[in-house]
């Protein structure tokens, strides 16, 4: 016989109350990635004297920024049960568009708008292929990964475009200590959280990822929402592309190559499920920070770049493994 959950069953017997240690342990249980990040920071602080300096921490932030912004976009795709492999290429294409428009004498604000529009357009094409062409997201965005990279190379003729001063301030630091990429990352994180929690499209993402058929039968226009989702991913990729180009003061057609994998790793480490329906902006931010802290720490500890890749692979596997075990428990 099915057992009905008794009303108030859990409330009555709240085990052990809310004493601080238990709150902390419960918090860490629900935010495993954050716990890992804190542990890593503490560990590195002991192992390397250079780690816990303001300069270095801001460095980590700057290094995390591009991955994090890409990953925020990818979060939308993954929460809705899809994936986007094209974000690295779309970021490069948007960056190139910005640089090219700059050399054409277009007003700088318009160049920004058009660069973001470029990324959005790429995302819309992904969305059209997925929702109306019925291509699996993996395939549609794999095609875009190649096409957008190609367009970046075509537009730039394969050579980097130097950005004017009026653009590259985005890569700079305000007042000697506050790097603009970090500000952009935080703003994008807040936007992502707002979209996911507060907007109709965000709630629709969870519904579609949780059970597409149930969402459809509840009157959610699934195909239209998928257009919105992938367009958003494209727009986020464009922002990441602009930040990256500004940091280097030059738009490069080969920029952000392979970044889509870092972005997906950040989302997954942050606790999102590739099956869809689960994922948070804060989790993705933590995931991106873990990757950046890890790279930075291994550098400080003089671990060779080759071994770094091995360690990062192990961390991705471990993060998801622990998450799976925790969910099963």
């Amino acid at each position, binding site marked *: *016989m*099915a*057992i*009905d*959950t*008794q*009303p*108030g*069953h*859990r*409330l009555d017997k709240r085990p052990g109350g809310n004493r601080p240690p238990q709150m902390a342990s419960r918090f860490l249980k629900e935010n495993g990635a954050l716990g890992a990040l804190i542990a890593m920071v503490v560990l590195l602080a002991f192992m390397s004297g250079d780690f816990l300096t303001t300069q270095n921490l801001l460095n980590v932030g700057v290094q995390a920024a591009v991955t994090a912004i890409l990953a925020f976009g990818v979060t939308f795709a993954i929460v809705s049960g899809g994936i986007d492999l094209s974000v690295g290429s779309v970021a490069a294409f948007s960056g190139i568009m910005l640089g090219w428009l700059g050399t054409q004498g277009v007003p700088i604000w318009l160049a920004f708008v058009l660069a973001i529009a470029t990324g959005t357009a790429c995302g819309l094409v992904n969305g059209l292929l997925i929702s109306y062409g019925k291509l699996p997201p993996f395939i549609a965005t794999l095609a875009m990964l190649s096409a957008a990279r190609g367009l970046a190379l075509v537009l730039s003729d394969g050579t980097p475009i130097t950005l004017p001063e009026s653009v590259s301030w985005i890569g700079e630091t305000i007042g000697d200590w506050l790097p603009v990429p970090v500000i952009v990352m935080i703003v994008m994180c807040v936007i992502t959280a707002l979209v996911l*929690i*507060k*907007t*109709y*499209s*965000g*709630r*629709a993402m*969870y*519904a579609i990822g*949780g*059970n597409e*058929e*149930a*969402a*459809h*039968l*509840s*009157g*959610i*226009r699934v195909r239209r929402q998928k257009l919105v989702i992938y367009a958003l991913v494209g727009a986020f990729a464009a922002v990441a592309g602009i930040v990256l180009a500004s940091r280097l003061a030059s738009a490069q057609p080969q920029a952000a190559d392979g970044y889509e994998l870092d972005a997906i790793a950040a989302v997954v480490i942050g606790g999102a499920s590739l099956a869809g*329906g*689960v994922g948070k902006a804060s989790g993705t931010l933590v995931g991106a920070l873990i990757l950046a802290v890890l790279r930075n720490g291994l550098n400080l500890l003089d671990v060779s770049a080759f071994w770094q890749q091995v360690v990062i692979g192990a961390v991705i596997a471990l993060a998801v493994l622990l998450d799976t075990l925790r969910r099963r428990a």
Partner: protein
Amino acid sequence: MTTPDPPPARELLRTEGIRKTFPGVVALDGVDFDLRAGEVHVLLGENGAGKSTLIKVLSGTHRPDAGRVLCDGKAVRIGDAEAAEKLGIATIHQEFNLVPHLSIAENLFLGRQPRRFGIVDRKRMEADAQALLKRVGVTAPPRTPVRELGIAGRQMVEIAKALSLRARVLIMDEPTAVLTSEEVNRLFGIVRGLRSEGVGIVLITHHLEEIPAIGDRVTVLRDGRSVGQVPANTPQDDLVTLMVGRSIEQQYPRKAGSGTPAAADQPLLRVTGLRRQGVFQDISFEVHAGEVVGVAGLVGAGRTEVVRAVFGADPYDAGRVEVAGKKLPRGDVWASHAAGLGLVPEDRKGQGLLPDASVTDNLGLVTLRESSTGGLVDRSGLRKEASRIAERLGVRMAGMEQHVRTLSGGNQQKVVIGKWLLAKSRVLILDEPTRGIDVGAKVEIYQLINELTASGHAVLMISSDLPEVLGMSDRVLVMSQGRIAGELTARDATQDAVMALAVGTSAPGTSEMEDSPRGH
């Protein structure tokens, strides 16, 4: 019950007092059954009587909670499919276990291809396949990919596969449901051939007229029990009585005729001439405010397909759907919802719920757009509304943030119904609303249906549970083979009358019903 003259054949298989329960449901409650060599033993029963569960016990998919299975007089444990295969029991399910892109020969010998030095000996495999195919009358060459075969051809390949495993017991779950009458005749020819070779055959069919043509004995299941064993030439009426023979208990709280509307008022839902090629046709009916219209019929009669089309979840080729006099566009769930139509789908977990989302999120799913302004969702307003509905429906839960996966079936169903109430839907389509729900929760759902109709809602309810349809409906539509075979008033709707319409008097397989595709 009467037992026919026992033919002096060897007994292959016997079950005694088989019992199997699932959470909330007793599927088998003491089944006695036996099968002799060289006979066709028909298993008969309504939907949900326990036929499929019994087959799954015999084929090793389910292990019984109590009772025993004897093979050649010895008690055996059929722990898995492999054990069944070793005992010589082969099952042909309604869903075939074939790999469409592989050839017939590869399918026949999947996992046990003849090998030489570790390499598949194609020549021998195809020669062996050829011999098997000849036995079942398939003329296609063994190299033909299975996807190029029709349904009947695939079924023959399944039978050939069973033969190659030297099956002594062949179990067939509704093999004729998808065949044309010509194909049925061929199938029966092959079944007779196997019978004369001494194979024991268990056959499930809903087509009563097939029973004397092919069967030797019939065992009738009802509510998980074997209620009778009769010879195959038993008159159809007697078989129907055996299948449904029970009274409707007082568990259905509906007052008969309480919702009968005045004929003059406008129907809330009117469907005219709805047709979808190869799935359903000539579907016309009305549902008035305050009325529960039941839709009865066998599984595969096209009931779910019709209501999904009405709701806009699937397309249709011709016809008209009106809600409160307003025509609905085709295939647009959003428009249906906006017009006041709601659907509680048959597959609660697969189609009705976001299992890993909270009660709040599930209840607010339909109204998400209405509670948004400028793209922003008023979450606190939504939460308030959702709690109000949850309280009204008496959803038992730890809190509004509990994931619906962890609710019981009855409470999950309340959530699915609740999201439409939140959306103020006036016409509710309930597809198998109480499937897999325990008795107590069922009564709650019935009471809810009564409250809804009393407050002017209209309910269209599909159910394969006959007593439920009869107990809850003001009118009953009976579907058979994609058509409405008849409409009965609450007074005229008896189990016998409904079953007679549902099994139809038409010849088997005259329709060209396909295994209807769902979704997109």
